[in-house]
Protein backbone atom coordinates (compact mmCIF):
# COMPACT_ATOMS: atom_id res chain seq x y z
CA UNK A 1 0.00 0.00 0.00
CA UNK A 2 1.60 3.31 -1.03
CA UNK A 3 2.21 6.06 1.53
CA UNK A 4 -0.65 8.14 0.17
CA UNK A 5 -2.94 5.23 0.82
CA UNK A 6 -1.47 4.92 4.30
CA UNK A 7 -2.23 8.58 4.92
CA UNK A 8 -5.74 7.99 3.63
CA UNK A 9 -6.05 5.06 6.00
CA UNK A 10 -4.77 7.26 8.82
CA UNK A 11 -7.29 9.91 7.93
CA UNK A 12 -10.03 7.29 7.83
CA UNK A 13 -8.89 6.14 11.25
CA UNK A 14 -9.03 9.70 12.55
CA UNK A 15 -12.50 10.15 11.11
CA UNK A 16 -13.46 6.91 12.71
CA UNK A 17 -12.13 8.16 16.03
CA UNK A 18 -14.02 11.40 15.63
CA UNK A 19 -17.23 9.50 15.27
CA UNK A 20 -16.55 7.81 18.57
CA UNK A 21 -17.36 4.49 17.00
CA UNK A 22 -13.84 3.20 17.53
CA UNK A 23 -14.14 3.68 21.23
CA UNK A 24 -15.45 0.18 21.46
CA UNK A 25 -13.67 -3.12 21.01
CA UNK A 26 -16.21 -3.99 18.35
CA UNK A 27 -15.28 -0.93 16.34
CA UNK A 28 -11.61 -1.80 16.52
CA UNK A 29 -12.30 -5.29 15.28
CA UNK A 30 -14.38 -3.98 12.37
CA UNK A 31 -11.59 -1.58 11.39
CA UNK A 32 -8.84 -4.22 11.63
CA UNK A 33 -10.96 -6.57 9.56
CA UNK A 34 -11.48 -3.88 6.93
CA UNK A 35 -7.72 -3.31 6.61
CA UNK A 36 -7.02 -7.04 6.44
CA UNK A 37 -9.53 -7.56 3.64
CA UNK A 38 -8.11 -4.54 1.82
CA UNK A 39 -4.59 -6.03 1.96
CA UNK A 40 -5.74 -9.50 0.93
CA UNK A 41 -7.64 -8.15 -2.05
CA UNK A 42 -4.66 -6.02 -3.26
CA UNK A 43 -6.98 -3.34 -4.60
CA UNK A 44 -8.01 -5.58 -7.45
CA UNK A 45 -4.50 -5.61 -8.95
CA UNK A 46 -3.92 -8.69 -11.13
CA UNK A 47 -1.00 -9.68 -13.36
CA UNK A 48 0.36 -12.47 -15.53
CA UNK A 49 3.89 -13.83 -15.09
CA UNK A 50 5.65 -16.41 -17.25
CA UNK A 51 8.26 -18.79 -15.85
CA UNK A 52 10.26 -20.41 -18.65
CA UNK A 53 12.83 -23.19 -18.43
CA UNK A 54 16.28 -22.39 -19.90
CA UNK A 55 18.77 -24.97 -18.74
CA UNK A 56 21.85 -23.05 -19.81
CA UNK A 57 22.96 -20.07 -21.86
CA UNK A 58 23.40 -22.25 -24.94
CA UNK A 59 19.66 -22.82 -25.24
CA UNK A 60 17.63 -20.95 -27.91
CA UNK A 61 17.03 -17.98 -25.64
CA UNK A 62 15.42 -15.75 -28.27
CA UNK A 63 12.76 -18.41 -28.91
CA UNK A 64 12.23 -18.95 -25.18
CA UNK A 65 11.74 -15.21 -24.67
CA UNK A 66 9.39 -14.89 -27.66
CA UNK A 67 7.34 -17.86 -26.43
CA UNK A 68 7.16 -16.29 -23.00
CA UNK A 69 6.04 -12.97 -24.43
CA UNK A 70 3.39 -14.74 -26.50
CA UNK A 71 2.14 -16.55 -23.41
CA UNK A 72 1.78 -13.13 -21.77
CA UNK A 73 -0.09 -11.74 -24.76
CA UNK A 74 2.79 -9.51 -25.83
CA UNK A 75 3.35 -9.43 -29.59
CA UNK A 76 4.09 -7.33 -32.61
CA UNK A 77 1.07 -5.10 -32.03
CA UNK A 78 2.62 -3.97 -28.73
CA UNK A 79 6.20 -3.59 -29.91
CA UNK A 80 6.18 -2.70 -33.59
CA UNK A 81 7.76 0.68 -34.32
CA UNK A 82 8.70 1.21 -30.66
CA UNK A 83 12.05 2.24 -29.17
CA UNK A 84 12.99 -0.38 -26.58
CA UNK A 85 15.52 0.19 -23.81
CA UNK A 86 16.95 -2.94 -22.20
CA UNK A 87 18.31 -2.26 -18.74
CA UNK A 88 20.56 -5.12 -17.57
CA UNK A 89 22.45 -5.24 -14.27
CA UNK A 90 26.21 -4.66 -14.66
CA UNK A 91 26.70 -3.45 -11.08
CA UNK A 92 30.27 -4.72 -10.60
CA UNK A 93 31.35 -7.25 -13.22
CA UNK A 94 34.18 -9.54 -12.15
CA UNK A 95 36.07 -12.12 -14.20
CA UNK A 96 35.00 -15.68 -13.36
CA UNK A 97 31.96 -14.56 -11.37
CA UNK A 98 29.15 -14.75 -13.94
CA UNK A 99 26.54 -14.80 -11.18
CA UNK A 100 26.96 -11.04 -10.65
CA UNK A 101 25.68 -9.60 -13.91
CA UNK A 102 22.91 -10.24 -16.42
CA UNK A 103 24.36 -12.65 -18.97
CA UNK A 104 25.17 -10.99 -22.32
CA UNK A 105 23.47 -13.80 -24.25
CA UNK A 106 20.19 -13.11 -22.43
CA UNK A 107 20.49 -9.41 -23.27
CA UNK A 108 21.31 -10.25 -26.89
CA UNK A 109 18.40 -12.70 -27.13
CA UNK A 110 16.00 -10.10 -25.73
CA UNK A 111 17.23 -7.55 -28.25
CA UNK A 112 16.71 -10.02 -31.09
CA UNK A 113 13.27 -10.94 -29.79
CA UNK A 114 12.11 -7.30 -29.71
CA UNK A 115 13.61 -6.59 -33.13
CA UNK A 116 11.89 -9.67 -34.58
CA UNK A 117 8.57 -8.25 -33.34
CA UNK A 118 9.23 -5.09 -35.32
CA UNK A 119 10.81 -2.80 -32.73
CA UNK A 120 12.21 0.32 -34.43
CA UNK A 121 15.28 0.36 -32.21
CA UNK A 122 16.70 -1.57 -29.27
CA UNK A 123 19.19 0.09 -26.94
CA UNK A 124 21.07 -1.37 -24.00
CA UNK A 125 21.58 1.13 -21.18
CA UNK A 126 22.90 0.84 -17.65
CA UNK A 127 24.41 3.00 -14.92
CA UNK A 128 26.67 0.47 -13.22
CA UNK A 129 26.40 0.97 -9.48
CA UNK A 130 29.93 0.27 -8.33
CA UNK A 131 32.24 0.63 -11.32
CA UNK A 132 32.93 3.70 -13.47
CA UNK A 133 35.03 2.54 -16.39
CA UNK A 134 32.52 1.95 -19.21
CA UNK A 135 34.86 -0.02 -21.46
CA UNK A 136 36.09 -2.24 -18.63
CA UNK A 137 32.50 -2.86 -17.48
CA UNK A 138 31.41 -3.97 -20.95
CA UNK A 139 34.47 -6.15 -21.48
CA UNK A 140 34.37 -7.79 -18.06
CA UNK A 141 30.63 -8.43 -18.34
CA UNK A 142 31.26 -10.09 -21.71
CA UNK A 143 28.97 -7.54 -23.31
CA UNK A 144 31.34 -5.47 -25.48
CA UNK A 145 31.80 -7.81 -28.41
CA UNK A 146 28.20 -9.06 -28.26
CA UNK A 147 26.89 -5.51 -28.63
CA UNK A 148 29.41 -4.54 -31.28
CA UNK A 149 28.78 -7.64 -33.39
CA UNK A 150 25.01 -7.21 -33.11
CA UNK A 151 25.31 -3.47 -33.82
CA UNK A 152 23.34 -2.65 -30.67
CA UNK A 153 24.07 0.72 -29.09
CA UNK A 154 25.11 0.86 -25.42
CA UNK A 155 24.44 4.01 -23.42
CA UNK A 156 26.24 4.50 -20.11
CA UNK A 157 23.50 6.06 -18.00
CA UNK A 158 26.03 7.14 -15.38
CA UNK A 159 26.98 10.22 -17.41
CA UNK A 160 23.92 11.16 -19.45
CA UNK A 161 21.87 14.37 -19.47
CA UNK A 162 19.09 14.41 -16.90
CA UNK A 163 15.83 16.15 -16.22
CA UNK A 164 14.23 16.79 -12.82
CA UNK A 165 11.08 14.73 -12.40
CA UNK A 166 8.76 15.17 -9.39
CA UNK A 167 8.72 12.32 -6.90
CA UNK A 168 4.97 11.79 -6.91
CA UNK A 169 5.05 8.64 -4.78
CA UNK A 170 6.87 10.36 -1.95
CA UNK A 171 8.10 7.24 -0.18
CA UNK A 172 11.51 8.88 0.30
CA UNK A 173 12.24 12.49 1.23
CA UNK A 174 13.33 13.34 -2.33
CA UNK A 175 11.11 16.00 -3.93
CA UNK A 176 12.47 15.39 -7.42
CA UNK A 177 14.72 12.83 -9.08
CA UNK A 178 17.27 13.57 -11.78
CA UNK A 179 16.17 11.11 -14.46
CA UNK A 180 18.12 10.36 -17.65
CA UNK A 181 16.35 12.15 -20.50
CA UNK A 182 16.81 9.00 -22.53
CA UNK A 183 14.37 7.16 -20.27
CA UNK A 184 11.69 9.72 -21.13
CA UNK A 185 12.28 9.35 -24.86
CA UNK A 186 11.97 5.57 -25.24
CA UNK A 187 8.68 3.71 -25.53
CA UNK A 188 9.51 0.70 -23.38
CA UNK A 189 11.86 0.27 -20.43
CA UNK A 190 12.66 -3.40 -19.94
CA UNK A 191 14.24 -4.29 -16.62
CA UNK A 192 16.65 -7.23 -17.06
CA UNK A 193 18.12 -8.13 -13.69
CA UNK A 194 19.98 -11.15 -12.43
CA UNK A 195 18.08 -13.34 -9.96
CA UNK A 196 19.97 -12.62 -6.73
CA UNK A 197 19.71 -12.37 -3.00
CA UNK A 198 20.80 -9.04 -1.53
CA UNK A 199 22.37 -8.19 1.80
CA UNK A 200 20.48 -4.89 2.25
CA UNK A 201 17.20 -5.51 0.37
CA UNK A 202 16.67 -9.26 0.83
CA UNK A 203 16.42 -9.89 -2.90
CA UNK A 204 17.47 -7.83 -5.92
CA UNK A 205 15.27 -8.37 -8.95
CA UNK A 206 13.52 -6.22 -11.56
CA UNK A 207 12.37 -3.48 -9.15
CA UNK A 208 15.71 -3.00 -7.38
CA UNK A 209 17.42 -3.06 -10.80
CA UNK A 210 16.08 0.45 -11.44
CA UNK A 211 18.73 1.89 -9.09
CA UNK A 212 20.97 1.24 -12.08
CA UNK A 213 18.86 3.47 -14.29
CA UNK A 214 19.93 6.53 -12.30
CA UNK A 215 23.16 8.38 -13.09
CA UNK A 216 26.19 7.98 -10.85
CA UNK A 217 27.37 11.47 -11.75
CA UNK A 218 24.38 12.74 -9.76
CA UNK A 219 23.90 9.99 -7.15
CA UNK A 220 27.48 8.74 -6.70
CA UNK A 221 29.09 5.29 -6.82
CA UNK A 222 27.58 3.29 -5.16
CA UNK A 223 24.23 5.10 -5.32
CA UNK A 224 24.87 6.31 -1.79
CA UNK A 225 22.09 8.90 -1.83
CA UNK A 226 19.50 6.12 -2.14
CA UNK A 227 20.98 4.37 0.87
CA UNK A 228 20.70 7.57 2.89
CA UNK A 229 17.09 8.06 1.81
CA UNK A 230 16.24 4.40 2.50
CA UNK A 231 16.73 1.62 -0.02
CA UNK A 232 13.17 0.31 0.09
CA UNK A 233 11.70 3.82 -0.17
CA UNK A 234 13.80 4.58 -3.23
CA UNK A 235 12.98 1.28 -4.93
CA UNK A 236 9.30 2.19 -4.63
CA UNK A 237 9.76 5.81 -5.70
CA UNK A 238 11.77 4.89 -8.79
CA UNK A 239 9.33 2.19 -9.88
CA UNK A 240 6.36 4.51 -9.42
CA UNK A 241 8.12 7.27 -11.36
CA UNK A 242 9.76 5.33 -14.21
CA UNK A 243 6.86 2.90 -14.71
CA UNK A 244 8.86 0.23 -16.54
CA UNK A 245 6.95 -1.77 -19.13
CA UNK A 246 8.41 -5.25 -18.93
CA UNK A 247 10.86 -7.44 -17.03
CA UNK A 248 12.99 -10.39 -18.06
CA UNK A 249 14.86 -11.90 -15.12
CA UNK A 250 18.01 -13.92 -15.80
CA UNK A 251 17.60 -16.86 -13.44
CA UNK A 252 19.57 -19.33 -15.53
CA UNK A 253 22.46 -18.84 -13.13
CA UNK A 254 21.60 -16.57 -10.23
CA UNK A 255 23.27 -15.68 -6.94
CA UNK A 256 22.55 -16.95 -3.44
CA UNK A 257 23.85 -15.92 -0.03
CA UNK A 258 25.81 -12.68 0.20
CA UNK A 259 24.39 -10.92 -2.86
CA UNK A 260 24.58 -8.72 -4.86
CA UNK A 261 28.33 -9.21 -5.42
CA UNK A 262 29.96 -11.73 -3.10
CA UNK A 263 27.36 -14.51 -3.13
CA UNK A 264 27.69 -17.91 -4.75
CA UNK A 265 26.44 -18.97 -8.16
CA UNK A 266 23.11 -20.80 -8.06
CA UNK A 267 21.79 -22.60 -11.10
CA UNK A 268 18.02 -22.24 -11.40
CA UNK A 269 17.71 -22.68 -15.16
CA UNK A 270 14.90 -20.14 -15.52
CA UNK A 271 13.87 -16.95 -17.26
CA UNK A 272 10.99 -15.10 -15.62
CA UNK A 273 8.99 -12.50 -17.56
CA UNK A 274 6.06 -10.19 -17.12
CA UNK A 275 4.63 -6.73 -17.58
CA UNK A 276 4.10 -6.04 -13.88
CA UNK A 277 7.40 -5.84 -11.99
CA UNK A 278 6.16 -6.50 -8.42
CA UNK A 279 4.37 -9.61 -9.71
CA UNK A 280 7.48 -10.77 -11.56
CA UNK A 281 9.64 -10.21 -8.48
CA UNK A 282 7.15 -11.90 -6.17
CA UNK A 283 7.19 -14.93 -8.47
CA UNK A 284 11.01 -14.91 -8.55
CA UNK A 285 11.06 -14.71 -4.77
CA UNK A 286 8.83 -17.80 -4.52
CA UNK A 287 11.05 -19.60 -7.02
CA UNK A 288 14.03 -18.75 -4.77
CA UNK A 289 12.23 -19.97 -1.65
CA UNK A 290 11.63 -16.45 -0.35
CA UNK A 291 8.29 -15.16 0.92
CA UNK A 292 7.58 -11.91 -0.98
CA UNK A 293 5.26 -10.74 1.78
CA UNK A 294 8.33 -10.61 4.06
CA UNK A 295 10.45 -8.54 1.66
CA UNK A 296 9.75 -4.91 2.63
CA UNK A 297 9.74 -3.28 -0.81
CA UNK A 298 7.56 -6.04 -2.28
CA UNK A 299 5.14 -5.94 0.63
CA UNK A 300 4.82 -2.15 0.26
CA UNK A 301 4.25 -2.48 -3.49
CA UNK A 302 1.35 -4.84 -2.90
CA UNK A 303 -1.96 -3.44 -4.13
CA UNK A 304 -0.30 -0.23 -5.28
CA UNK A 305 2.34 -1.00 -7.91
CA UNK A 306 1.05 -4.49 -8.47
CA UNK A 307 -0.06 -7.75 -6.93
CA UNK A 308 2.39 -9.95 -5.07
CA UNK A 309 -0.02 -12.57 -3.66
CA UNK A 310 0.09 -15.84 -5.51
CA UNK A 311 -3.68 -15.97 -5.96
CA UNK A 312 -3.59 -12.66 -7.84
CA UNK A 313 -0.82 -13.65 -10.27
CA UNK A 314 -1.80 -15.77 -13.27
CA UNK A 315 1.09 -18.17 -13.76
CA UNK A 316 2.11 -18.92 -17.37
CA UNK A 317 4.70 -21.46 -18.41
CA UNK A 318 6.16 -23.59 -15.65
CA UNK A 319 4.50 -24.23 -12.32
CA UNK A 320 6.43 -22.58 -9.46
CA UNK A 321 6.49 -25.70 -7.29
CA UNK A 322 7.90 -27.84 -10.10
CA UNK A 323 10.90 -25.61 -10.83
CA UNK A 324 11.58 -23.75 -7.56
CA UNK A 325 15.19 -23.86 -6.35
CA UNK A 326 15.86 -22.81 -2.77
CA UNK A 327 18.47 -20.02 -2.73
CA UNK A 328 20.66 -19.92 0.39
CA UNK A 329 19.88 -17.11 2.84
CA UNK A 330 22.27 -15.96 5.55
CA UNK A 331 21.20 -15.71 9.17
CA UNK A 332 23.93 -13.14 9.84
CA UNK A 333 22.33 -10.77 7.30
CA UNK A 334 19.35 -8.96 8.89
CA UNK A 335 17.64 -8.33 5.54
CA UNK A 336 17.65 -12.07 4.82
CA UNK A 337 16.52 -13.19 8.27
CA UNK A 338 13.00 -14.58 8.50
CA UNK A 339 12.11 -14.13 4.82
CA UNK A 340 12.13 -17.83 3.94
CA UNK A 341 8.91 -19.06 2.34
Amino acid at each position, binding site marked *: MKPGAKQEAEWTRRKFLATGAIGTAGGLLVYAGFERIHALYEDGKRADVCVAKAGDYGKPLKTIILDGMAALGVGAADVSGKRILLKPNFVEPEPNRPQIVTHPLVVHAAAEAFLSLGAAEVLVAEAAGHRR*DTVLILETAGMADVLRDAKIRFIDLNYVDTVAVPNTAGCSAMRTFEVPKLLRSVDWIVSMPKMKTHHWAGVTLSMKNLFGAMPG*CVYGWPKNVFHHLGIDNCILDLNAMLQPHFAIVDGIVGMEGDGPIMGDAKHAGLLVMGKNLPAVDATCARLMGVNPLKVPHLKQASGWLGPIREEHIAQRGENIRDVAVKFALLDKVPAQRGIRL
Partner: protein
Amino acid sequence: MAARELERLMEGDGGFAYTEGSEVRADATAWGLLALRLLQSDAASIERTAQKLESWQDSSGSLVLPLDRYPAVWPSSLALLAWSGMPGMVPASEKAAQFLLHDNAVVRSNRPPKGSEINDPDFSGWPWNNGTYSWVIPTSVALLALKSSGHEKEERCARAIEMLLERQLPHGGWNYGNTIIFNTELLPLPDTTGLALCALAGHVGLDKVQRSLDYLQSVLAGISSPLAMAWGILALKAWGIGVTDCEARAQRAFEKARSYGALNCESLGMLAACVQVAQNLPLTLRAAGEAGLK
Protein backbone atom coordinates in the same frame (compact mmCIF):
# COMPACT_ATOMS: atom_id res chain seq x y z
CA MET B 1 43.78 12.22 -32.81
CA ALA B 2 42.71 12.78 -29.19
CA ALA B 3 42.83 16.52 -29.79
CA ARG B 4 40.38 16.18 -32.69
CA GLU B 5 38.01 14.12 -30.52
CA LEU B 6 38.29 16.73 -27.81
CA GLU B 7 37.31 19.47 -30.23
CA ARG B 8 34.10 17.61 -31.00
CA LEU B 9 33.14 17.79 -27.32
CA MET B 10 33.90 21.50 -26.89
CA GLU B 11 31.37 24.27 -27.37
CA GLY B 12 32.20 27.77 -28.56
CA ASP B 13 32.14 29.20 -25.02
CA GLY B 14 34.79 26.72 -23.83
CA GLY B 15 32.34 24.35 -22.09
CA PHE B 16 32.58 20.63 -22.62
CA ALA B 17 30.02 17.87 -23.03
CA TYR B 18 30.89 14.52 -21.47
CA THR B 19 30.06 12.72 -24.71
CA GLU B 20 29.31 14.01 -28.17
CA GLY B 21 25.81 15.43 -28.43
CA SER B 22 25.21 15.76 -24.71
CA GLU B 23 24.87 18.96 -22.69
CA VAL B 24 27.77 21.06 -21.45
CA ARG B 25 28.42 20.36 -17.77
CA ALA B 26 30.85 21.30 -14.97
CA ASP B 27 32.43 17.86 -14.51
CA ALA B 28 32.88 17.38 -18.26
CA THR B 29 34.38 20.87 -18.59
CA ALA B 30 36.87 20.15 -15.81
CA TRP B 31 37.98 16.98 -17.63
CA GLY B 32 38.11 18.97 -20.86
CA LEU B 33 40.32 21.60 -19.26
CA LEU B 34 42.68 18.94 -17.90
CA ALA B 35 42.90 17.34 -21.33
CA LEU B 36 43.50 20.65 -23.09
CA ARG B 37 46.33 21.50 -20.71
CA LEU B 38 47.94 18.08 -20.85
CA LEU B 39 47.77 18.09 -24.64
CA GLN B 40 49.25 21.61 -24.60
CA SER B 41 46.42 23.11 -26.63
CA ASP B 42 46.38 26.80 -27.47
CA ALA B 43 46.34 29.26 -24.59
CA ALA B 44 43.13 30.98 -25.72
CA SER B 45 41.14 27.71 -25.60
CA ILE B 46 42.55 26.84 -22.20
CA GLU B 47 41.71 30.27 -20.82
CA ARG B 48 38.17 30.17 -22.22
CA THR B 49 37.50 26.74 -20.78
CA ALA B 50 38.96 27.67 -17.38
CA GLN B 51 36.65 30.69 -17.21
CA LYS B 52 33.65 28.69 -18.36
CA LEU B 53 34.36 26.26 -15.55
CA GLU B 54 34.48 29.14 -13.09
CA SER B 55 30.99 30.22 -14.22
CA TRP B 56 29.60 27.12 -12.44
CA GLN B 57 31.25 27.99 -9.13
CA ASP B 58 28.77 29.20 -6.55
CA SER B 59 29.36 31.53 -3.61
CA SER B 60 30.40 28.63 -1.37
CA GLY B 61 33.25 27.78 -3.75
CA SER B 62 31.63 24.53 -4.88
CA LEU B 63 30.64 23.33 -8.33
CA VAL B 64 27.50 21.24 -8.11
CA LEU B 65 25.37 18.91 -10.18
CA PRO B 66 22.01 19.86 -8.69
CA LEU B 67 19.84 17.63 -6.58
CA ASP B 68 17.23 18.81 -4.10
CA ARG B 69 18.89 16.84 -1.31
CA TYR B 70 22.52 15.75 -1.07
CA PRO B 71 23.76 17.80 -4.07
CA ALA B 72 26.59 16.23 -6.07
CA VAL B 73 29.57 18.38 -5.08
CA TRP B 74 32.35 16.15 -6.38
CA PRO B 75 33.05 18.33 -9.48
CA SER B 76 34.52 20.90 -7.04
CA SER B 77 37.65 18.73 -6.57
CA LEU B 78 37.93 18.14 -10.28
CA ALA B 79 37.75 21.88 -11.01
CA LEU B 80 40.43 22.59 -8.42
CA LEU B 81 42.66 19.95 -10.03
CA ALA B 82 42.05 21.37 -13.51
CA TRP B 83 42.77 24.97 -12.43
CA SER B 84 45.91 24.20 -10.44
CA GLY B 85 48.98 26.08 -11.62
CA MET B 86 46.95 28.59 -13.65
CA PRO B 87 47.82 32.08 -12.33
CA GLY B 88 44.53 33.59 -13.51
CA MET B 89 42.50 31.00 -11.64
CA VAL B 90 44.04 31.41 -8.17
CA PRO B 91 40.98 33.10 -6.60
CA ALA B 92 38.59 30.44 -7.94
CA SER B 93 41.00 27.70 -6.88
CA GLU B 94 41.29 29.08 -3.38
CA LYS B 95 37.50 29.27 -3.02
CA ALA B 96 37.18 25.67 -4.17
CA ALA B 97 39.93 24.56 -1.79
CA GLN B 98 38.29 26.31 1.16
CA PHE B 99 34.98 24.64 0.30
CA LEU B 100 36.64 21.23 0.28
CA LEU B 101 38.54 21.86 3.49
CA HIS B 102 35.79 23.44 5.56
CA ASP B 103 32.31 23.22 4.04
CA ASN B 104 32.12 19.92 2.17
CA ALA B 105 30.06 17.94 4.64
CA VAL B 106 30.57 14.24 5.07
CA VAL B 107 28.63 12.05 7.43
CA ARG B 108 30.70 9.99 9.77
CA SER B 109 28.50 6.94 9.66
CA ASN B 110 26.44 5.13 7.08
CA ARG B 111 24.42 3.66 9.95
CA PRO B 112 24.93 0.10 8.72
CA PRO B 113 22.93 -2.74 10.22
CA LYS B 114 24.55 -4.23 13.29
CA GLY B 115 27.06 -6.89 12.38
CA SER B 116 27.69 -5.71 8.85
CA GLU B 117 31.20 -4.51 9.79
CA ILE B 118 31.20 -1.43 7.59
CA ASN B 119 34.43 0.51 7.93
CA ASP B 120 35.25 2.72 10.88
CA PRO B 121 33.18 5.90 10.44
CA ASP B 122 35.71 7.94 12.40
CA PHE B 123 37.90 8.00 9.31
CA SER B 124 36.43 10.51 6.90
CA GLY B 125 37.44 11.72 3.48
CA TRP B 126 35.15 13.25 0.87
CA PRO B 127 31.77 12.18 -0.49
CA TRP B 128 30.26 12.26 -3.97
CA ASN B 129 27.22 14.06 -2.55
CA ASN B 130 27.29 16.61 0.24
CA GLY B 131 26.26 15.12 3.57
CA THR B 132 26.76 11.48 2.59
CA TYR B 133 29.45 8.92 3.28
CA SER B 134 33.14 9.10 2.23
CA TRP B 135 34.22 7.01 -0.73
CA VAL B 136 37.60 6.22 -2.24
CA ILE B 137 37.28 8.02 -5.58
CA PRO B 138 36.01 11.44 -4.42
CA THR B 139 38.48 11.33 -1.52
CA SER B 140 41.39 10.52 -3.83
CA VAL B 141 40.48 13.23 -6.34
CA ALA B 142 40.09 15.80 -3.54
CA LEU B 143 43.50 14.85 -2.13
CA LEU B 144 45.15 15.13 -5.55
CA ALA B 145 43.48 18.49 -6.11
CA LEU B 146 44.49 19.88 -2.71
CA LYS B 147 48.02 18.57 -3.21
CA SER B 148 48.21 20.22 -6.64
CA SER B 149 47.06 23.53 -5.16
CA GLY B 150 49.45 23.45 -2.19
CA HIS B 151 47.03 22.48 0.61
CA GLU B 152 48.39 19.01 1.40
CA LYS B 153 49.42 19.95 4.95
CA GLU B 154 45.85 20.62 6.07
CA GLU B 155 44.38 18.49 8.85
CA ARG B 156 41.52 17.29 6.66
CA CYS B 157 44.04 15.86 4.16
CA ALA B 158 45.72 13.93 6.98
CA ARG B 159 42.36 12.46 8.00
CA ALA B 160 41.60 11.53 4.40
CA ILE B 161 44.95 9.75 4.06
CA GLU B 162 44.10 7.71 7.16
CA MET B 163 40.69 6.97 5.68
CA LEU B 164 42.20 5.71 2.40
CA LEU B 165 44.61 3.45 4.28
CA GLU B 166 41.76 2.13 6.40
CA ARG B 167 39.71 1.34 3.28
CA GLN B 168 42.57 -0.60 1.65
CA LEU B 169 41.54 -4.24 1.23
CA PRO B 170 43.41 -6.75 3.40
CA HIS B 171 44.71 -8.53 0.29
CA GLY B 172 45.56 -5.29 -1.51
CA GLY B 173 43.78 -2.81 -3.72
CA TRP B 174 40.63 -0.80 -3.16
CA ASN B 175 36.98 -1.48 -3.90
CA TYR B 176 34.75 1.62 -4.20
CA GLY B 177 35.09 2.23 -0.48
CA ASN B 178 34.25 -0.65 1.82
CA THR B 179 36.53 -3.52 2.74
CA ILE B 180 34.73 -6.29 4.61
CA ILE B 181 30.95 -6.68 4.81
CA PHE B 182 29.36 -9.61 6.66
CA ASN B 183 32.78 -11.27 7.09
CA THR B 184 33.47 -11.19 3.36
CA GLU B 185 36.32 -9.20 1.85
CA LEU B 186 35.23 -7.22 -1.20
CA LEU B 187 37.06 -7.33 -4.52
CA PRO B 188 39.67 -4.80 -5.66
CA LEU B 189 38.97 -2.59 -8.67
CA PRO B 190 41.87 -1.47 -10.88
CA ASP B 191 40.77 2.12 -11.55
CA THR B 192 39.92 2.80 -7.90
CA THR B 193 43.21 1.25 -6.81
CA GLY B 194 45.21 3.33 -9.28
CA LEU B 195 43.52 6.53 -8.18
CA ALA B 196 44.00 5.82 -4.45
CA LEU B 197 47.67 5.00 -5.01
CA CYS B 198 48.14 8.28 -6.93
CA ALA B 199 46.56 10.17 -4.06
CA LEU B 200 48.71 8.48 -1.41
CA ALA B 201 52.02 8.87 -3.28
CA GLY B 202 54.39 11.05 -1.29
CA HIS B 203 52.26 10.79 1.86
CA VAL B 204 52.86 7.25 3.11
CA GLY B 205 55.66 4.71 2.99
CA LEU B 206 55.89 1.93 0.43
CA ASP B 207 55.27 -0.68 3.12
CA LYS B 208 51.74 0.69 3.63
CA VAL B 209 50.68 0.07 0.03
CA GLN B 210 52.96 -2.71 -1.25
CA ARG B 211 50.08 -5.23 -1.48
CA SER B 212 48.05 -2.80 -3.55
CA LEU B 213 50.94 -2.09 -5.90
CA ASP B 214 51.42 -5.85 -6.29
CA TYR B 215 47.73 -6.26 -7.13
CA LEU B 216 47.81 -3.40 -9.63
CA GLN B 217 50.92 -4.74 -11.37
CA SER B 218 49.34 -8.19 -11.58
CA VAL B 219 46.26 -6.94 -13.45
CA LEU B 220 47.47 -3.92 -15.40
CA ALA B 221 48.94 -5.84 -18.34
CA GLY B 222 45.50 -7.26 -19.13
CA ILE B 223 43.71 -3.91 -19.00
CA SER B 224 43.24 -1.73 -22.06
CA SER B 225 40.33 0.49 -21.08
CA PRO B 226 41.21 4.19 -20.85
CA LEU B 227 40.36 4.94 -17.22
CA ALA B 228 41.70 1.87 -15.45
CA MET B 229 44.80 1.67 -17.63
CA ALA B 230 45.61 5.37 -17.27
CA TRP B 231 45.14 5.51 -13.49
CA GLY B 232 47.16 2.31 -13.20
CA ILE B 233 50.06 3.69 -15.22
CA LEU B 234 50.00 7.00 -13.34
CA ALA B 235 49.96 5.16 -10.00
CA LEU B 236 52.94 2.97 -10.82
CA LYS B 237 54.81 5.99 -12.14
CA ALA B 238 53.97 7.93 -8.96
CA TRP B 239 55.49 5.11 -6.90
CA GLY B 240 58.64 4.99 -9.03
CA ILE B 241 57.76 1.87 -10.97
CA GLY B 242 58.59 2.12 -14.65
CA VAL B 243 55.93 1.40 -17.24
CA THR B 244 56.93 0.88 -20.82
CA ASP B 245 54.95 1.44 -23.96
CA CYS B 246 52.61 4.04 -22.42
CA GLU B 247 52.01 5.96 -25.61
CA ALA B 248 51.22 2.87 -27.67
CA ARG B 249 48.94 1.53 -24.94
CA ALA B 250 47.14 4.87 -24.77
CA GLN B 251 46.64 4.74 -28.52
CA ARG B 252 45.21 1.22 -28.36
CA ALA B 253 42.88 2.18 -25.51
CA PHE B 254 41.76 5.20 -27.50
CA GLU B 255 40.93 3.06 -30.55
CA LYS B 256 39.10 0.50 -28.46
CA ALA B 257 36.98 3.05 -26.60
CA ARG B 258 36.11 4.68 -29.90
CA SER B 259 35.05 1.36 -31.43
CA TYR B 260 32.65 0.81 -28.49
CA GLY B 261 31.30 4.35 -28.76
CA ALA B 262 32.61 4.98 -25.27
CA LEU B 263 35.02 7.86 -25.80
CA ASN B 264 34.34 10.75 -23.46
CA CYS B 265 36.24 13.75 -22.16
CA GLU B 266 37.29 11.92 -18.98
CA SER B 267 38.87 9.14 -21.04
CA LEU B 268 40.55 11.73 -23.25
CA GLY B 269 41.91 13.57 -20.23
CA MET B 270 43.31 10.38 -18.73
CA LEU B 271 44.83 9.25 -22.02
CA ALA B 272 46.47 12.65 -22.33
CA ALA B 273 47.96 12.07 -18.87
CA CYS B 274 49.36 8.75 -20.11
CA VAL B 275 51.02 10.46 -23.04
CA GLN B 276 52.43 12.98 -20.58
CA VAL B 277 53.98 10.08 -18.65
CA ALA B 278 55.29 8.50 -21.83
CA GLN B 279 57.07 11.71 -22.74
CA ASN B 280 58.43 12.09 -19.19
CA LEU B 281 56.68 15.42 -18.78
CA PRO B 282 55.84 16.77 -15.32
CA LEU B 283 53.06 14.73 -13.75
CA THR B 284 51.37 17.32 -11.61
CA LEU B 285 49.78 20.33 -13.20
CA ARG B 286 51.25 22.47 -10.48
CA ALA B 287 54.70 21.49 -11.70
CA ALA B 288 53.48 21.92 -15.26
CA GLY B 289 52.39 25.45 -14.43
CA GLU B 290 55.74 26.22 -12.86
CA ALA B 291 57.40 24.85 -15.96
CA GLY B 292 55.55 27.44 -18.02
CA LEU B 293 52.61 25.39 -19.27
CA LYS B 294 49.65 27.75 -19.03
